[in-house]
């Protein structure tokens, strides 16, 4: 479980760099995604990059669309929708 979280954190930081965004404060479970330094474009790139890395995109798979507010919720979506 924590492996997945680590991957997400690593790529999160990668996207911050490539989209010229700055992390506001620290990235914790409670960090509000849209206030973390990533805007919707950065967020979209993050999801696309994660799909490349993890080979699945929960936002495309999801039956019931969920829109995460915090970082923890974001990671949960990836855990819940991981292919068996």
């Amino acid at each position, binding site marked *: 479980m924590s492996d997945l979280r680590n991957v997400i954190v690593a790529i999160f930081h990668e996207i911050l760099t490539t989209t010229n965004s700055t992390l506001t404060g620290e990235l914790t479970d409670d960090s509000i995604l849209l206030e973390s330094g990533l805007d919707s474009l950065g967020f*979209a790139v993050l999801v696309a990059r994660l799909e490349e890395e993890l080979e699945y995109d929960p936002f495309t798979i999801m039956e019931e*669309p969920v829109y995460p507010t915090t970082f923890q919720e974001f990671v949960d979506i990836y855990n819940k929708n991981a292919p068996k």
Partner: protein
Amino acid sequence: MKLSNFIDDAEDETVILASDNMNLRVQDLSTERDRFSSFLTVIHGKNVTLDFKSNFVLAMWLILLDGRASRLTLLPPELDNENKSKFIQLTNSKFILSDRDIHSVALEPYSVNLTFYDVTQLQTEEIASSQSLSDFETQWILLTSGTTGSPKLVRHTLKSLTNTSKRSKKMTKRTWGLLYGLQRIAGLQVFLQSLLSCNKLVIAEIEQSLAEKIQLFSRHAVDCLSATPTLWRQMLMFTEFPKFTFTTITLGGEIVDGNILRALKKTFPQAKIRHIYASTEAGVGFSVADGLPGFPESYLHNPISDVSLKLTETNTLLIRSNSRSSGYLGSATLDVVEGYIDTGDLIRIKEDRCYFEGRENGTINVGGNKVHPEHIEQVLLEFPGVRFAHVTAKKSPIIGSLVQANIVIDDSIINQKEFIAKLREHCNGQLERFMVPAFFKIEDEIKLNASGKICRNE
């Protein structure tokens, strides 16, 4: 009929426009009209260009100027000076109105016969100069990038712009939120719809963050909102957002998918949800309120209100309606065949339903922003080491599409990662943020077709 007539029946105390720190009531508008009466006489029957940064100030001046100026040209404040000069000349504008001090020098050589007015510095009267001058059917000139990269001017009238707006018979108290810029058709449609029914329009400004805009709307209890799917997805990520009690939800500007429709239905079960198909050239085309993406195939066979839809041989959507503009200003010609405009949007039919597939010319829609692949390719090719470049769309469930750059680079380049980092930096300096490729793929070769052109439709 001019804009100010829309609120003739409203009571003086009715708030028409609201912003962060201001409320404009019907009687305030009358006061402003009296205060600026001399100025309004000066511009009467003339062509005026409006270059406003503030949506709120622009909204008020649109109400004051419609029916008085013969032509109103709306220019976005971020437009470059070269294009501004070009359009001022093309629209034969005698006056530029702005809400800030814009230097005439920057607009040489076209500024010779031009008079600049900063509305915040205008001289006002205590008593209105009583001059009853006859109304004009003001021409509204809007900017669009059309089907190619270069901006064009599109001609409308109040009639063509409000063709599909309905006047609420019950005059129910609604409060609209404005998220868009007022210079584009999306923003204008919200403004006109709100004004037509004497509702309150809560106006957000460009410099506000989305969080601030949502707070503003919440303070004013906005219950009607129009936004792109990307914006709706973003707003749904705010914890407080589900607390809104929307009665009317409108989507447009991008392809609307089933996921966002379902999410909105779930979060706001009491709202009427519709997605609107519109373009600057076609005006407002039609709307779909059945909760499903795309539109029923039956729309292609039976006109909806006065709107007729057809498909071309290449499956692009043709539209004919009274909402359409009367054409472009300048040398560009609006392609109209038997009254139909080719929207350039590709349609796929599946099980009695028409779905939007993207643009025929390959324009990429990044969160509502039009991106032209060729332009980005040019920028990429400027960078030493890039031999070929092909820009494609990468589908995104978050903002519709992202930009992907597929490139062939010099064999001599060993450190590819470093090269990409520098190439990205080069793009950052030349392109707007949403145009900068989100992904770079290094290819061995790029496919060319028989004429030696890049294969774009695979």
